């Protein structure tokens, strides 16, 4: 398998096999890219395997092969290939090489069988690398998406010059309150806001931990030189808060967002009149 001619021949067989495969995704990848990836991988693979080591892919010889395979698998995972579509890349090479070996060692079936087993084992290992990288990239993708959903779920809104609003909807956990606190303080610095209205109309439960976080946020807001207004405390929430013995006195309480806004306008010296 070390002559250039055979490399070309093998490449043709392999690319053909990939194109013929039912897992081909022409919509996600052009023929040219597929071919280029195949050429690159095959070259590295032959370079590594020609050194005689056909068992251990952890050695330095296989490092470029594994790195390249990880890159290819990662890219495919990101592009939206399914696991089997991604793995076909390596496994179709196995079929192609086995076909090649069969032709080569037609006369000596013993060598053929040992070589077949060796090559199968080696490519199976590379197949595992593909799966690992695929799963890892997918996990990362999911984590990134979770982060961006978290980011989007707690927007900080500039509703007037020097007034920002933080509507909190859904369940508040420590991670989210932490994020809200940091974003809120950052926004105050950015906009020079004087009043920050924290609206908890959409919060079903305010437990001790969450209230502690809100109080901490309010204290930090005050340290920056702004005021924290808490609006939208529902009757049930008010009851639990008092039963839990939480002291919300560091926040200025207002019934609704409208009341909070009115307070904020007065605070920054605005007067709202009907024309």
């Amino acid at each position, binding site marked *: 398998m070390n002559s250039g001619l055979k490399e070309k021949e093998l490449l043709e067989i392999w690319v053909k096999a990939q194109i013929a495969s039912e897992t081909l995704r022409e919509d996600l990848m052009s023929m040219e890219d597929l071919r280029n990836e195949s050429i690159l991988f095959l070259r590295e693979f032959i370079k590594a395997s020609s050194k005689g080591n056909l068992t251990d892919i952890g050695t330095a010889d296989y490092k470029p092969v594994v790195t390249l395979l990880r890159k290819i698998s990662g890219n495919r995972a990101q592009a939206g290939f399914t696991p089997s579509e991604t793995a076909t890349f390596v496994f179709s090479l196995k079929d192609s090489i086995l076909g090649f070996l069969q032709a080569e060692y037609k006369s000596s079936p013993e060598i053929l069988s040992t070589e077949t087993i060796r090559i199968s084992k080696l490519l199976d290992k590379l197949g595992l690398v593909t799966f690992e990288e695929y799963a890892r990239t997918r996990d990362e993708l999911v984590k990134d998406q979770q982060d961006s959903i978290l980011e989007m779920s707690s927007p900080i809104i500039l509703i007037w010059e020097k007034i920002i609003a933080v509507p909190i909807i859904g369940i508040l956990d420590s991670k989210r309150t932490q994020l809200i*606190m*940091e974003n809120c*303080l*950052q926004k*105050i*610095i950015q906009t*020079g806001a*004087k009043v920050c209205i924290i609206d908890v109309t959409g919060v079903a439960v305010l437990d001790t931990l969450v209230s502690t976080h809100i109080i*901490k946020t309010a*204290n*930090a*807001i*005050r*340290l*920056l*030189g*702004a005021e924290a207004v808490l609006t939208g405390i529902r009757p049930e929430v008010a009851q639990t808060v008092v039963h839990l013995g939480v002291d919300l006195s*560091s926040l200025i309480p207002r019934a609704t967002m409208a009341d909070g806004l009115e307070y904020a306008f007065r605070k920054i010296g605005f007067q709202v009149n009907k024309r």
Partner: protein
Amino acid sequence: MQKIPILKIGKNLIVSLQFDVDDKTALQLQSDLLQTISKTGATGVIIELSALDMVDSFMGRIISDISKMSASMNANTVVAGIQPSVAITLVELGLKLEQVHTVLNIEDGIELLTKLDRQIENDDSENQ
């Protein structure tokens, strides 16, 4: 030990902390500041922290002490330009600086001190 300059503008004193202050420097600043208040008869002090990313508990205590001490010498203290990271640290340390006025920047600080001054004058004239 580095000395922190105290600037006088009108009836206000401005102190800008530009580097992490060690305990000795902080104590020196405290006594320098009180000396200057008594010498100049200043009615307001602005401590500006916008260049600091970290404040330790000792510095937090010094700031609240300065505020109380200068209040007894008839000067209001305003802390300006606390960064988010500093605010979070102070809150986590349990230092709320409740007696201290806080503002976003020096400009707001001067505005607030002027307002507080006027309030005191009004109170005084009402009492007469």
